[in-house]
């Protein structure tokens, strides 16, 4: 009973009490029903003895408060070595009679660090208890419930919002970088609100998605959490193994992220205001070093000279460009402000708990004309209608506005990529200081890809998205009898997304497009609506206070519908009126690929799916020492073939709290030890909505004479047996606490096999079809994860270190029958090898001399002195790219050997300091821009390293009489070859995929440093205040040379193929800025 009291006052109480995740049902019901009614039998009472029958000599009084000065009721106060003790009252005040000789008082409470205070002469002992964030008595939200952390048998990790509060970023996943073992989070682009790739346990799938399932307050949402206000979040739990996720069944295979939003906290009304403001800037370091104007002119001059050709007039005298460089990349960037304001109000009145978070976030991007705004509100309210019935409502509306220039992508779309390529001799501004329209150097200078002005493109194109979102939950919960809870929930998610693109006639983001160009508008809208109904029953019971059971059973239904439409129009007479009616053409045919949106130009459609499930879980423990959980979910899905509609996903897990055994008491250094193991089957249903059907497309039109005739064709093969991807996962883990939990260590090993991969099995197109959707193939994954928390110093100066490291491996065991490899443009996925490896020729330098050329394997007709030399892998004496005599081989991997994170926090008096970093080791990136920025034909601007290329002078071959590369001027530095002989020769280095394009992308990024100071309270104004300064994306330690962001990974290679099979391509995306901010937290 006393423990209940303590628990009720712990910070977890409010949240648990209001969301009622049920698995601690009994205790919670107790809380709801009033303390006197409780028999908290799923908790294990500390050996707390309360006694007042010893004759006492004096009385010690005092007040117990927490870190923030809030009174703490229910704290147990015991005189060490005796049975004398008491408990603090509702105001945190205690009074205890102790013998005159004194002694040591022990203060303890759930969720706080136990503290011992030697008694002196004073009769008043006030004490402040420090929060124990890592306490093993912590309660953790798990799927369809919550559990004492101590009793968890799966691989689960939780991050509290307090740990993330100062990080000035728009997305919660950015805040999580480096914090979680086994979860790789990469920021693939610096675009505000976008581009976070979250992969739990190295998850990949050939075609089904790899993103985890996000569950907000029990509601599996249908999108991502990229637009969610991070300040609404109380904590985040990552479910990694099959036992933890199996209750999410066919959606669980990529892992599950449970997000719990803020609830009414205990005590009286609390108001807090958090704000920060700062500036963002792209550091110079890490940018691709390009030739400046003079160097470029020099390159062009030398290129013509080496080939004995007339140097075009524009490049005769490179020094005329000295000091007249045009840095097109830099011209697109700016220093930009970022601001965030959040107001949180929480109250906990009798019969009603409520919490409100209102947020405004405004980020100007570091690329010109980029603007991101978010207005959000969340209201969570819960009412006790009676002692047995409670109802709750959560409502979270949100509005997001985003205008981002077309920054990312290759030649057709990305201004940043294009800016790198633009000749630095081309002026950004004309003589009058106005932006140039279109740079066309004469073709005779080698300018065949004329360049529009990218600054104009960034400023004048509209590329905006407006999102209105609403997330709502309503639930009713009923506790009819002791131990039984019934709960019904209705969740809705609504999103309206309006995209508008306008390319006026005055600018374009595509290379080689003259200005004025054809004005184009695209309007795309989509509406998503999803509802979920869940009905859960939970029953808890204990026998003899030893055998503790919890049984969960439930039935859920969810339905999702999306409606979308797009209208593309072109040719405007007036750029000021980009309406549909203002366009001369509505674009109906063909397809577009603008801003990542592709498909036919004008269309509408709908997407829908339905899911129906039964869930059940049994949790049993014996004295909280021997733990067992079994769970099962059955999912019926509209996505599965009509002959294969239901999937069953069972799991089981066991745990043993070794430290509770008597024999462990003799090893006091080990304060906690638990071993756990789990096994389960989970699925991935991201297989598309109508994949099972043979669809008929009726836009395959023909023309007869001057008439268009509608044509219809069967576009796919049907498969009524199509199903989910199945993952069987084993996990074994060990949780250890040492030195009274000063050091906590968590280790996990996992091994999983994914079978029945959704695979569009390529079939020969002699059938008229390109593929057949089937469940086929197998991938094996395994890995190790270690997390360490160490409270290095606990005195006045406190220092805590959190570190984690993860090793993820995978291997393709089987693809489709008869297929042992799948090629991408730069990648190969091959049986027996890890997924999606880089594939190409092996660069071995350059042919240095005639002799070397004569004695080495060459590419007939395309090798010369100074051209790239590849390894003759098959030893046939000839270098061949593709075909039967292929010399290509696996040359690298986009997957790291390991990833890691490190956070150090310090506090001293009112000061606190936190330093977070994350890193990745052993992965490579494909430097995509090198195809063109190291195009030795000099049609684009080039990387600065091209200065140190191989140089050779053309001459007449005395034997054949042909003009060819003859005498070496300089062998250069070994990175770039000679320009002579033109495209047929230089094209080998440029066009043949090889290790030339690979760069080591290992990095360690100092993600965040925050220094804060607690001002304390000012009476009648605010209770406490803290100011802080923070730097985000402080420094990237890396040898990566291909661009500023070694975390980048295009999903797709810009050459047509995309998705999981072709990760790790650097498409010169939006750089991640460094952000300096000043912030304040005020509590009223």
């Amino acid at each position, binding site marked *: 009973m006393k423990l209940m009291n303590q628990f009720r006052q712990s910070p977890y109480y409010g949240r648990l009490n209001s969301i009622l995740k049920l698995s601690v049902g009994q205790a919670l019901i107790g809380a709801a029903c009033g303390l006197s009614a409780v028999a908290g039998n799923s908790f294990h009472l500390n050996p707390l003895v309360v006694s007042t029958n010893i004759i006492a000599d004096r009385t010690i009084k005092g007040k117990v408060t927490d870190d923030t000065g809030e009174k703490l009721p229910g704290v147990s106060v015991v005189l060490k070595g005796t049975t004398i003790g008491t408990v603090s009252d509702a105001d945190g005040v205690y009074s205890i009679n102790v013998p005159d000789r004194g002694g040591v008082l022990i203060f303890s409470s759930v969720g706080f660090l136990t503290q011992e205070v030697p008694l002196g002469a004073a009769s008043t002992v006030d004490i402040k208890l420090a929060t124990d964030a890592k306490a093993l008595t912590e309660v953790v939200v798990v799927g369809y419930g919550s559990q004492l952390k101590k009793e968890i048998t799966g691989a689960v990790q939780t991050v509290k919002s307090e740990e993330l509060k100062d990080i000035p970023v728009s997305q919660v996943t950015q805040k999580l970088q480096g914090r979680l073992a086994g979860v790789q989070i990469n920021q693939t682009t610096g675009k505000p609100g976008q581009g976070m790739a979250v992969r739990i346990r190295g998850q990949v799938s050939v075609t089904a998605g790899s993103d985890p399932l996000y569950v907000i307050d029990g509601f599996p949402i249908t999108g991502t959490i990229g637009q969610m206000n991070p300040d609404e979040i109380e904590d985040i739990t990552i479910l990694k193994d099959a036992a933890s996720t199996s209750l999410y069944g066919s959606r669980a295979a990529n892992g599950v992220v449970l997000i719990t939003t803020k609830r009414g906290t205990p005590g009286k009304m609390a108001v807090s205001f958090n704000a920060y403001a700062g500036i963002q800037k792209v550091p110079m370091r890490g940018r691709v070093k390009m030739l400046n104007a003079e160097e470029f002119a020099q390159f062009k001059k030398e290129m013509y000279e080496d080939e004995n050709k007339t140097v075009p007039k524009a490049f005769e005298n490179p020094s005329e460009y000295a000091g007249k460089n045009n840095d097109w990349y830099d011209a697109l960037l700016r220093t930009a402000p970022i601001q965030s304001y959040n107001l949180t109000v929480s109250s906990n009145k009798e019969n009603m708990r409520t919490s409100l978070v209102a947020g405004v976030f405004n980020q100007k991007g570091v690329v010109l004309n980029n603007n991101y705004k978010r207005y959000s509100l969340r209201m969570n309210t819960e009412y006790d209608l009676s002692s047995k019935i409670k109802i709750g409502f959560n409502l979270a509306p949100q509005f997001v506005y985003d205008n981002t220039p077309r920054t990312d992508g290759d030649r057709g779309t990305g201004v940043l990529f294009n800016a790198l390529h633009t000749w630095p001799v081309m002026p950004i501004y004309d003589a009058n200081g106005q932006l140039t329209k279109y740079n066309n150097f004469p073709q005779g200078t080698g300018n065949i890809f004329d360049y529009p002005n990218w600054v104009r493109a960034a400023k004048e194109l509209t590329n905006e998205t407006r999102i209105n979102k609403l997330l709502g939950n309503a639930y009713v919960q009923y506790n009819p009898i002791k131990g039984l809870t019934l709960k019904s929930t209705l969740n809705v998610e609504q999103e309206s997304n309006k995209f508008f693109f306008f390319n006026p006639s005055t600018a374009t983001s595509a290379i080689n497009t003259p200005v004025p160009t054809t004005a184009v508008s695209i309007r795309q809208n989509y509406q998503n609506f999803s509802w979920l109904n869940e009905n859960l029953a939970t029953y808890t019971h204990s026998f003899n206070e030893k055998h503790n059971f919890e049984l969960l059973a439930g039935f859920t239904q969810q339905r999702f519908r999306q409606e979308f439409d797009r209208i593309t129009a072109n040719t405007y007479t007036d750029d000021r009126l980009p309406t549909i009616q203002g366009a001369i053409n509505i674009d*109906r045919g063909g397809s577009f690929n603008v801003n990542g949106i592709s498909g036919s130009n004008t269309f509408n459609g709908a997407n829908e799916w339905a899911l129906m499930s039964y869930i059940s879980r049994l949790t049993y423990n014996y004295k909280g020492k021997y733990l067992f959980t079994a769970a099962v979910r059955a999912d019926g899905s509209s996505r599965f073939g009509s002959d294969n509609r239901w999937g069953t996903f069972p799991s089981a897990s066991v745990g043993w709290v070794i430290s509770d055994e008597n024999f462990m008491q003799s090893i006091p250094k080990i304060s906690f030890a638990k071993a756990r193991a789990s096994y389960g089957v989970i699925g991935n249903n991201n297989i598309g909505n109508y994949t099972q059907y043979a*669809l008929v497309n009726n836009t395959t039109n*023909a023309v007869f004479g001057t008439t*268009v005739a509608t*044509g219809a064709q069967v576009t796919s093969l*049907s498969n009524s047996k199509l199903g989910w991807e199945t993952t069987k996962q084993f996990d074994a883990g060990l949780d250890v606490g040492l030195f009274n939990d000063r050091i906590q260590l968590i280790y996990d090993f996992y091994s999983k096999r994914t079978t029945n991969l959704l695979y569009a099995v390529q079939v020969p197109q002699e*059938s008229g079809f390109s593929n057949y959707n089937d469940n086929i193939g197998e991938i094996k994954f395994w890995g190790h994860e270690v997390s360490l928390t160490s409270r290095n110093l606990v005195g006045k100066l406190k220092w805590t270190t959190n570190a984690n490291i993860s090793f993820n491996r995978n291997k393709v065991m089987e693809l489709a029958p008869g297929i042992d490899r799948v090629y991408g443009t730069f990648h190969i996925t091959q049986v027996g090898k890890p997924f999606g490896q880089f594939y190409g020729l092996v660069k071995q330098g350059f042919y240095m001399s005639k002799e070397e050329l004569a004695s080495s394997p060459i590419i007939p*007709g395309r090798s010369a002195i100074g051209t790239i030399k590849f390894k003759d892998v098959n030893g046939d004496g000839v270098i061949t790219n*593709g075909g039967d005599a292929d010399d290509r081989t696996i040359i690298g991997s986009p997957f790291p050997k390991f990833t890691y994170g490190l956070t150090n926090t310090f506090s001293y008096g009112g000061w606190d300091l936190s330093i977070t970093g994350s890193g990745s080791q052993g992965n490579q990136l494909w430097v995509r821009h090198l195809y063109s920025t190291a195009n030795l034909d000099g049609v684009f601007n080039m990387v600065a390293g091209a200065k140190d290329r191989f140089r050779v002078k053309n001459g007449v071959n005395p034997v054949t009489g042909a003009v060819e590369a003859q005498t070496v001027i300089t062998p250069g530095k070994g990175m770039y070859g000679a320009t002579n002989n033109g*495209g047929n020769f230089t094209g080998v280095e440029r066009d043949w995929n090889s290790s030339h394009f690979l760069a080591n992308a290992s990095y360690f990024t100092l993600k965040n440093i925050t220094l804060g100071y607690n001002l304390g309270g000012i009476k009648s104004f605010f209770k406490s205040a803290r100011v802080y300064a923070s730097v985000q994306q402080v420094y990237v330690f890396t040898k990566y040379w291909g661009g500023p962001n070694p975390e980048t990974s295009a999903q797709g290679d810009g050459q047509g193929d995309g998705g999981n099979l072709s990760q790790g391509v650097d498409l010169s995306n939006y750089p991640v800025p460094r952000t300096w901010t000043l912030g304040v937290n005020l509590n009223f």
Partner: protein
Amino acid sequence: MKTKYIAAWILAAGLMAGCGDKFLTVNPETALSSNNFFTSESDFKQAVNATYEPFRQMYNERAWVLEEMHSDNTYYARNVLYGAVDPTENVADFAVPTANGITANDNVLVQYRLNYRIIARANQVLAKIDGVDFDAKSKANLKGQAQFLRAFAYFDLVRLFGKVPLHLVPATGRDDAPLPLASTDEIYAQIEKDAKDAIGGLYDKATQEAGRVTSGTARMLLANLYITQKKWGAAETLLKEIVTSGQYTLMPDYNDAFSYTSANKNNKESLFEIQYMEGSAGYNGNQIYRFIPSPITAAEIAPITGTANPQQTSQESNNIPTPDLIAAYEAGDKRKDISIGYVTLSGSAVENKTYPYIKKYARPHAIHQNTGQNWPVYRYAEVLLFLAEALNEGGKPGDAATYLNQVRTRAGLAATKAASQADLREAIFKERRVELAFENKRWFDLTRTGRVKEIIGAYGAKVKANPAAYYFPKGAVPPPNAFTVLDDYYGLPAVEAALTPHF
């Protein structure tokens, strides 16, 4: 009381669980599925229409690479600024890398796949059309089109590859997607059967909607097959049927035999044209832009394309008429200036900077890179030349000359002087070269007459001896492997080979 509430809750939850199968069946809303398609005349008409669709891409991008530039009629002109375009140059250079009957050449792959796309769509129609009841004449006409298109695609395949898989029913899954290679004779037999069936069902030119194939087109296809098979008598019969049908005649002016972007389409001389339509709807072609030499400035391109918004282009220049072809026109041949024009490129790396280009497809149009003229597949002129050939080979050289001279007369040339069977054979062969220049006929003329090694061998030697005459910039030469692959058939596409156990 409590029990009642619990029971009600369980009942409510249970009720919702009851309607599972209905809840879980979600049909696509914006696409039809094959279960509810193929149920009416309109469905089959749409399915037949879609069967024509792959031609647009095929004749815009690939057919001329494999069937015209792979001959002594056209070559490519290297634009050094653009870099190498290996797959296409390899075809022109007779250097397509081929090993064990397989090649990775992209043009080969795309042409192969587009043909099978036609075949698969025709198979869908033919598998289901007899099971649906509607107007018999219309059904026969639709069926005839599907049979023709299937036969036409197989005829292209068999002449390009010799042996290919023979799909006659729709594939249903992974197992029946790949089929074994059928022999040339088996494929010929199927083409013959389909073409004969099609002749019976198709409307004639007078009745058929312009642009669709007709019974005349099917006769021409079958005659073409017989000529390839050297079945001269059978060919003669069919070709005479076309001539005596009275539905076709030569256009008085050779220039009018070819359509403009909007006018003159499917004219009296036309038996079959690939249909294009100018405009933004996406049914256009842009062949001439693929053929124009470059780098070309806006001012230089304007007179050729006649658009209001001429733009410079820089690309690989393909399908450039060879000096050999130009020399093959007799003096006074009107067709020469209609077929071939010249342009001087200020930005060219070639010494005299002047190139010939294919003028007969350079028709004025409105929008840059967007043309609408049809591509001729079978013209009445070819009917006459085939008939002349069939008669000559059938031992009737006298009759043959009559038909040959009809073609020559329109070209402004005197009657042929050839009289012997051998001389006339050569005369017809040469007449076909210039009359049908750039119409994707030359390569198949070389293969069916067995003259690849003879003619291309000599042509290759000339290119190597004088690269400058074949548009190479000064000092540049053809690659060392040029003119080393002189087989009658292309290798089968490597990407497809990787997916089938049969080759």
